């Protein structure tokens, strides 16, 4: 009891945070929305611009509202989950912290009005979801799934950044309203729209990126309920809604959205009929449902945009309730997740059965639930476009009806399973009941929900939009389509039960030859490549140095050969004043040559040190006392540190390394690398010094400005003022170096 009390406080804290977030979003929205606009990087026209418009309100309310339900559910689920795995209660901290981080980034993503900002929050959701999916980090499967989700959504997320940069190059701004105002149809627009659409498809787990979502089900149930119904996956369609003014201007992108959405409906629907684990069925169902939304946006009509908003809302509520139901059922039956082993729970868990029935009915679009209206708009939008689209819509809805019937019926109907049931705490039923009540309320009075969806549609379309969802007791096409989807769905359910083997074979073929295989092979290839490069580069220290010098030298040489050569290579003259400097430099040169002779590490290092001191003398002659002072000091310190480090190395290692260079091909390779890279640097320095005019002007300007910076010494003014940012970065490197050296020597500890 004592151990549990702090975690209870945590859950309460997270719940309060979510509820406050929800209340704040609702209040600001009821006051007519609000905006924050702070300049971020004016020269790039990137702004910290957040606005709670209709779309943002819809997704923020979903993220915080469903988030609150999920936190309430986790209150008891998480301690149980952890105790099943013998994990300490303090692991909860991580869970709630990540969940809240996710919530914040989702709200940020929903409200962001700047493409760069959208990208930042987009990646933040991916990072938070990575850690949440891998919450059971001791399980390899969870880690693999988390990495897959991160890679699939992260790599495609880079496409979003590319789109932002492409648009910025063309239009000179990252601000979304500005982009919408300035963008003209053309290839740039099409490319950028396509990139954004691909990023959105991957996030919403649309075909062919769908494979990461079922894998991600290895996350704890509340995570699945939140990320994979209401938030992470919804981010993709949120982006589509946000960038809709761009996407709608390129017909190919819209057509692609229709195709991808329909493919997702089909693939998800058919595969959901074949799965046995509850969360797997829901995962396939989820991307099929988001297929609806992508499909509706792809139709390119006002009804589609409003319908998409209403659908997202209904689906987020219903699907999170179903995920939570799956978790509760599994908990009550002592860990059973397989549909084939479950059954007949309706009598024994009546509240759960009723609540999940409402949720399943909402997804299957039965009347008296919010889902019916969502599907009504779906059918209406499809019908507006033409009968082939209407047929697609009915096919998708029929599949949905079929697998939800299979899921709910399989769990709650049929012969009861004999197993003893564990009692469920109220926190694991109440959130589901609350979500179900909302869905039923929406099925009776649709107006508040539809208002929100219409506002979301309006911010996508840039013009007021009407949905017009209502019950019509007549034979209008939408009603006929709904009825036929129920009928076809029942047939599909019967057929699926009869021809289980055909469907399973289809699923196996998909798993074996589908895009997941491509992902696996791509990952294996990258691993092999990385191993190969690693082997090549870090076999020993000399290879590593060569791996830096040879490509760098090659690139610089290329630049010298291909680049513009103004001024060329001049040979200056030597006056009497330069004699001392020339002598010092000649001496340095001799020492540099001498460093190639010793084999003993300490001697070698002392020779290098001597070279450093000789160069310090050269700086002093050249009129750079500050530089000379620092050079002397750093050389001294490094000489001493190196000797200290050498004392740590076993003497046989040093001896073995010293003998390396005399063997085999290295005998010629190392000198060759050294000479060639040295020659390139020589030519580079020569060509740079041949055009000194500009460098000198900058220096004189700095000297002139030093008094403005209240400094008499120009060098210090440069370091602490003019180029203070450089100094800051350099000293940060010093701090990182300290952390690195100490943790290396202390084997991972910092002190």
């Amino acid at each position: 009891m004592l151990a549990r009390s702090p975690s209870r406080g945590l859950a309460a804290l997270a719940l309060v945070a979510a509820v406050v977030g929800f209340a704040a979003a609702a209040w600001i929205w009821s006051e007519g929305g609000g905006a924050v606009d702070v300049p971020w990087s004016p020269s790039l026209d990137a702004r910290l611009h957040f606005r709670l418009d209709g779309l943002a309100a819809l997704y923020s309310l979903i993220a915080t509202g469903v988030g609150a339900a999920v936190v309430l559910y986790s209150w008891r689920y998480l301690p149980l989950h952890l105790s099943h795995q013998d994990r300490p209660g303090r692991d909860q901290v991580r869970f709630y912290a990540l969940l809240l981080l996710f919530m914040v980034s989702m709200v940020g993503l929903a409200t962001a009005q700047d493409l760069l900002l959208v990208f930042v929050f987009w990646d933040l959701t991916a990072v938070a979801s990575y850690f949440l999916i891998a919450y059971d980090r001791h399980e390899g499967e969870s880690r693999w799934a988390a990495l897959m989700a991160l890679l699939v959504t992260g790599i495609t997320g880079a496409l979003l950044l590319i789109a932002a940069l492409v648009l910025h190059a063309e239009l000179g701004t990252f601000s979304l309203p500005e982009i919408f105002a300035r963008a003209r149809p053309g290839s740039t627009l099409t490319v950028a729209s396509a990139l954004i659409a691909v990023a959105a498809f991957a996030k919403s787990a649309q075909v062919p990126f769908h494979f990461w979502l079922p894998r991600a089900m290895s996350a704890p149930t509340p995570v699945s309920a939140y990320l994979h119904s209401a938030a992470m996956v919804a981010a993709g369609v949120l982006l589509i809604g946000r960038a809709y003014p761009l996407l709608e201007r390129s017909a190919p992108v819209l057509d692609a959205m229709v195709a991808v959405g329909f493919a997702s409906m089909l693939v998800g629907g058919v595969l959901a009929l074949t799965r046995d684990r509850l969360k797997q069925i829901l995962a396939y169902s989820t991307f099929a449902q988001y297929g609806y939304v992508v499909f509706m946006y792809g139709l390119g009509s006002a009804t589609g945009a409003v319908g998409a908003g209403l659908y997202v809302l209904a689906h987020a509520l219903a699907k999170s309730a179903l995920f939570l139901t799956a978790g509760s059922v599994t908990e009550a039956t002592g860990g059973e997740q397989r549909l084939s082993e479950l059954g007949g729970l309706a009598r024994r868990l009546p509240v759960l059965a009723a609540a999940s029935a409402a949720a399943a009915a909402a997804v299957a679009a039965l009347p008296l639930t919010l889902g019916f209206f969502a599907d009504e708009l779906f059918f209406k939008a499809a019908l507006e476009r033409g009968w082939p689209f209407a047929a697609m819509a009915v096919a998708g809805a029929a599949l949905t009806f079929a697998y939800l019937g299979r899921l709910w019926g399989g769990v709650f109907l049929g012969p009861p399973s004999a197993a003893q049931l564990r009692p469920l705490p109220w926190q694991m039923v109440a959130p589901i009941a609350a979500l179900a009540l909302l869905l039923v309320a929406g099925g009776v009075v649709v107006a508040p929900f539809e208002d929100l969806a219409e506002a979301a549609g309006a911010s996508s379309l840039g013009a007021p939009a009407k949905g017009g969802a209502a019950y019509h007791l007549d034979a209008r096409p939408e009603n006929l389509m709904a009825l036929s989807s129920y009928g076809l769905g029942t047939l599909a359910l019967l057929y699926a039960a009869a021809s289980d083997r055909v469907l399973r074979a289809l699923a196996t073929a998909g798993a074996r030859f589908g895009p997941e295989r491509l992902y696996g092979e791509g990952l294996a290839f990258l691993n092999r490549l990385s191993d190969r490069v690693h082997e090549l580069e870090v076999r020993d220290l000399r290879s590593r140095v060569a791996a830096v010098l040879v490509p760098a030298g090659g690139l610089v040489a290329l630049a010298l050969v291909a680049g513009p050569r103004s001024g060329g290579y001049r040979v200056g003259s030597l006056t009497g004043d330069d004699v001392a400097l020339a002598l010092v430099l000649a001496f340095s040169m001799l020492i540099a040559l001498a460093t190639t002779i010793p084999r003993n590490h300490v001697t070698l290092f002392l020779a290098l040190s001597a070279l450093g001191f000789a160069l310090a003398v050269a700086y002093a002659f050249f009129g750079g006392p500050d530089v000379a002072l620092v050079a002397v000091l750093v050389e001294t310190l490094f000489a001493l540190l190196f000797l200290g480090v050498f004392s740590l190395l076993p003497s046989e290692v040093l001896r073995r390394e010293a003998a390396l260079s005399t063997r085999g091909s290295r005998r010629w390779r190392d000198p060759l690398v050294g000479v060639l890279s040295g020659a390139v640097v020589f030519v580079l320095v020569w060509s740079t010094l041949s055009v000194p005019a500009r460098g000198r002007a900058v220096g004189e300007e700095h000297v002139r400005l030093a008094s403005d910076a209240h400094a008499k010494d120009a060098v210090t003014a440069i370091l602490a003022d003019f180029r203070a940012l450089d100094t800051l970065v350099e000293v940060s490197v010093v701090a990182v170096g300290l952390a690195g050296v100490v943790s290396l020597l202390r084997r991972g500890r910092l002190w």
Partner: protein
Amino acid sequence: MSTALTQMVARLLLAPILLVALAVLVKGYASVGDGFAAGVIAALGILLQYLAFGREEVERLLPVRLIPAAGFAGLVGALALAAWPLLRGEPLFTHLPRAGSEVTKLGTLELTSAIAFDLTVFVLVLGAAVGIVHAIARESEEGET
């Protein structure tokens, strides 16, 4: 290796070395020197103590365990100094007082926020160098035992 003579010299030199470091730090704005150089000089002085007395003795004599922590505090200070003009809507590292305005003087030292930045660099460099020296010293002792 360490004799009474080296110990005496090391002890005698510590105060002058730290004084020189301080001088290089505060004189930086008038002539040669800056926080970085001063930090290295001070670190060399402490390194000398390690060579003469060994780690345990130095730990007893000087707060060497605190110095690296102070270094990280210096980094935080430097970042804060860099960022706080942003709160006033000005670019990073807008030092005060501005060009041409009056400066408070402490002797001949002009007090500007650039000096404060230099001070954080000094603490950071000193902390990093002492931290590395300390880690090496501790590790080499453990290797011997």
